[in-house]
Every structure is written in structure tokens, then in C-alpha cells.
């Protein structure tokens, strides 16, 4: 696999980042301490380079109808300016990716897949578009994505937005996006700003052409210095999203997993009039009771000791294998180990105590409701 570098690679290097491969991209894992970066996002703000994420434009008279067919949700129903979390499934109901789609016009959507899946998703969209009057354009290679996440995110961003446009930012709702002027190097540029994130905090994601990414990154760091903003890497992004109970493709989600087992049933619109890829299989899976009365479902686990469960560790009940951990680590915010796991539905009720085999030693974990962490409003 070739290594990809984002337009911000030099910024990360200068800041002393250690790097990791993620979805074929060399991404900053941490700059200083992943714990400090985690706490900064919870208490002040963190700056993330998410340029490895994909960006695919879907435009044309059939854009809404096409996405209703290609994705599991009813994308035609969302208002212009809003966004929706959805899944792209295969014919068997397996999850190709989880993604966010922004409706940018009556006939215009921006679809944002995960880094490692971007090529796959773009190809699937092109293939599924055959009978629709739409154009599918993958602009991932020329688009950078920068996120400011944390309670101070809005205050930081407003410093770069002309005063007459402040209300566009302050009134922007969660899962909505707007074109707004942002000062990059003294020049105000109109950029797409979304109030979305993957941390469990308030925050924004800004889409910016590669050529301007480094200047925007520096401008945000300058504007945020007085608000406790620090660059934050993928290590803390993982601990933040886990605390917030958000699934990670490759851990909780995969082609071998369906939406009902993953607790994403509400994302699937079986009620929409149109057919969609995976509909028949998902209807059968739901009718069979997968994730509720049969099979396994995704649960949250809270460690009762100090040792953390990690991905792929076996989950046991009275010595019998009943599941497998998908993600786990010590929660920096909560101070105890947290994990997500697929377990047999009969052992999935909140309050059930299960064992996780931690390298040969059983440790007790309690099934708890997700998310582990919810910010106070």
C-alpha cells in the first residue's frame, strides 16, 4: 500500500508528532501526551487533521433518490443545510462504511466516508448510480478537513469569522453545515463549516482546499492559543470517541456486522418507499430479531477493576465464551476501563456482570448503557 500524506504533514512534523498508519495515511498519533490532548478536548479544545477522510460530491436531479437507493437512510428527507449519519451496506446487509452526508442544495450532497473506505465507497456510489441522473465526484485527494473540538471551539472559530457572519456560526445546529467566511492569512475565504465531530464534545469540522490547509491550521492555532487549543492526534481521537460510545469502522463495524447487531437499527429506513442496497437482507435480519432476541449485540462494558480490556479479548460468562471485545482502554475522563463488545443477546442486559479474559486472567466487567460519557449542556 502506498503511503499518503495530508497537506498538513509538515505542520505535524514541526509540532513533534509521532505518526501512525491509518487507512493508508501517515497521521499524527500524538504530539505530546495523548492524555493531555484528550483532556484538552474535554476541557478546552483540540485541533485535528482529518484530511484522510473522503469527500464525494453527489449532484444532479436524482441526487436524493439516488442516495436513498445507495445508502440505508432516507437522505431525500433531510433539509438543505442539514446532515445525516448513515450506512452504506452491501446486498447482504454488511456494512461497507458508516458515513455522514451533508445536503448542500436541492440536488447536491457531500458524502464523507472514512479514510480507509473512501475509494471503496466512491466506487460503490459510482456503480449504484447507473440508473440515476446524478454525477458522483470524488474530491478526497484535493480536500483537507480540519476539526476544532471542545467546549471552546465556538469562541476560537468566531475569532476568524467576520462579525457580520457570527450568527451563522452561533446559530448553527448540531449536524448542520453552512458556508461561512473564515480569515486565513488576512484573507476571508468562504469555506464549508459543519457542526459535527467524533469526540462527544461541541465542535466544528472545516472543509478546505489542500492549498489553504496549512494556513488555516496555523490561523486556528493562533486564534486558539488563549483558549487552550492544542493539536490533538488520533490516539486521543480514539479514546474520545470510545467514551462517547461512537463506533469505529474496522472495530465495531465491518462487512461481517449488520446495523441491528451494531445498535444502528434506527439508521436503517426500511419504511422508505424506494428499494435500497441491502434492504431485503436487512428486513430479514430485523424480522429474525438479530440484536434483540437472537445473535449478538454491541454493548458497553465498564471495568470493575483497573485493568483494561482490548480489542479481540474474549468475553466470558461462567467460563463460557459469550462475546468479543471490539475496542477498549482506560477512560481518561472517567478513570475506569471502558470497552465495547459484541455479546450474545441473552447476556447483553445492562447490569449483567461478565468476565473479560485479560491475557489469561479473568476480570469482571459490567454491561452499561452507551455512551459512557455525555457532556453537560
Amino acid at each position, binding site marked *: 500500500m502506498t503511503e499518503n500524506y495530508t497537506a498538513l504533514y509538515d505542520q505535524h512534523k514541526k509540532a513533534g508528532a509521532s505518526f501512525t498508519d491509518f487507512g493508508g495515511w501517515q497521521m499524527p498519533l500524538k504530539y505530546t501526551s*495523548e492524555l493531555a490532548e*484528550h483532556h484538552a478536548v474535554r476541557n478546552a479544545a483540540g485541533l485535528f487533521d482529518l484530511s484522510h477522510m473522503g469527500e464525494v460530491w453527489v449532484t444532479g436531479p436524482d441526487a436524493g433518490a439516488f442516495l436513498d437507493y445507495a445508502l440505508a437512510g432516507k437522505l431525500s428527507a433531510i433539509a438543505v443545510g442539514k446532515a445525516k449519519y448513515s450506512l452504506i451496506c452491501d446486498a447482504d446487509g454488511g456494512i461497507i462504511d458508516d458515513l455522514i452526508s451533508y445536503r448542500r442544495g436541492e440536488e447536491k450532497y457531500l458524502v464523507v466516508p472514512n479514510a480507509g473506505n473512501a475509494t471503496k465507497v466512491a466506487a460503490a456510489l459510482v456503480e449504484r448510480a447507473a440508473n440515476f441522473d446524478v454525477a458522483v465526484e470524488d474530491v478526497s485527494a484535493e480536500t483537507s478537513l480540519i476539526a476544532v473540538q471542545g467546549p471552546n471551539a465556538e469562541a476560537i472559530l468566531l475569532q476568524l469569522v467576520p462579525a457580520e457572519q457570527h450568527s451563522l456560526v452561533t446559530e448553527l445546529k448540531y449536524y448542520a453545515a453552512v458556508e461561512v467566511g473564515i480569515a486565513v492569512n488576512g484573507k476571508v475565504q468562504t469555506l464549508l463549516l459543519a457542526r459535527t465531530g467524533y469526540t462527544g464534545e461541541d465542535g466544528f469540522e472545516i472543509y478546505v482546499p489542500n492549498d489553504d490547509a496549512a494556513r488555516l491550521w496555523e490561523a486556528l492555532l493562533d486564534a486558539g492559543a488563549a483558549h487552550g487549543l492544542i493539536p490533538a492526534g488520533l490516539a486521543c481521537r480514539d*479514546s474520545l470517541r470510545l467514551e462517547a460510545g461512537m463506533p469505529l469502522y474496522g472495530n465495531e463495524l465491518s462487512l461481517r456486522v449488520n446495523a441491528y447487531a451494531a445498535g444502528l437499527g434506527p439508521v436503517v429506513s426500511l419504511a422508505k418507499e424506494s428499494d435500497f442496497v441491502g434492504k431485503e437482507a436487512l428486513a430479514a435480519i430485523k424480522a429474525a430479531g438479530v440484536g434483540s432476541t437472537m445473535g449478538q449485540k454491541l454493548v458497553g462494558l465498564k471495568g470493575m477493576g483497573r*485493568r483494561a480490556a*482490548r480489542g479481540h479479548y474474549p468475553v466470558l460468562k461462567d467460563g463460557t465464551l459469550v462475546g468479543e471485545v471490539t475496542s477498549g482502554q482506560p477512560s481518561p475522563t472517567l478513570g475506569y476501563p471502558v470497552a465495547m463488545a459484541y455479546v450474545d443477546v441473552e447476556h447483553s442486559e445492562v447490569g449483567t456482570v461478565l468476565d473479560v479474559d485479560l491475557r489469561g486472567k479473568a476480570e469482571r466487567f459490567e454491561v452499561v448503557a452507551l455512551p459512557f460519557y455525555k457532556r453537560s449542556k
Partner: protein
Amino acid sequence: MSKVVSELKYSAEHEWVAADGGGPVGIGISAVAADALGDIVYVDLPEVGSTVTAGETCGEVESTKSVSDLYAPVTGEVTEINDGVVADPALINSDPYGAGWLFKVAVTEEGPLMSAEEYAATNGGEL
């Protein structure tokens, strides 16, 4: 670049061993290992009075990202453990050769150990 302290000896598993001053010797993990692990949040040490065997696991070190076995770099009886590091494992990151020491052993036999120069050469550490 991570620091390697010249007056210590090192195992291939990144433990350091203090110079033998006649009594039990202090053992810890190197800055190279501490940096690679990330922020350490939990440490499981051998019990005082137990015997550790060079090259065998004797505990574990857990960071936010991962968990690693702790290998005894020497054979002998554990005479003391660092309660400070059990209470505050972050000391391993902030001061791996000082306040972040792990335990002391009355050595009966050393495992294969490297000089600081040899160890630094294996991982690009900085003397």
C-alpha cells in the same frame, strides 16, 4: 529523541538495571519504551519476597493505547517495590530513570544485558 542513561544496563525488552552497588539493584523501563507505550495508566509489579527469573514476565505495564508485559532483566528476590509508581504510573513517563523506578531485586544472576551504548544503538536512543 528518547534518552538513554549511560550508567545503567539494559535488557532487550527495554528494562534498565542499576549498577550493582553490593545490595539489591533498582529496575525500571527505559525512556524509549515509555515513549513508545504512551501515557502509562496502570502498572502491575511482582510481589515483595517473590522470585523473578531473567527473561520471564513478572508484571505488566498498561498505557492508554496498549499493554505490555514486564520482563525481569535479572534473577533474584524482589526486595522492594515502588509504591509511588503504583499510585501514580505517570511517573514512568515523566521520570523513567528516577521517580519512575519499578522494583528492586537481590540479584543472584543477571540475564543478558547491554551497555547504554549497545542499547542506544538498537533503537536510535540518545545517550
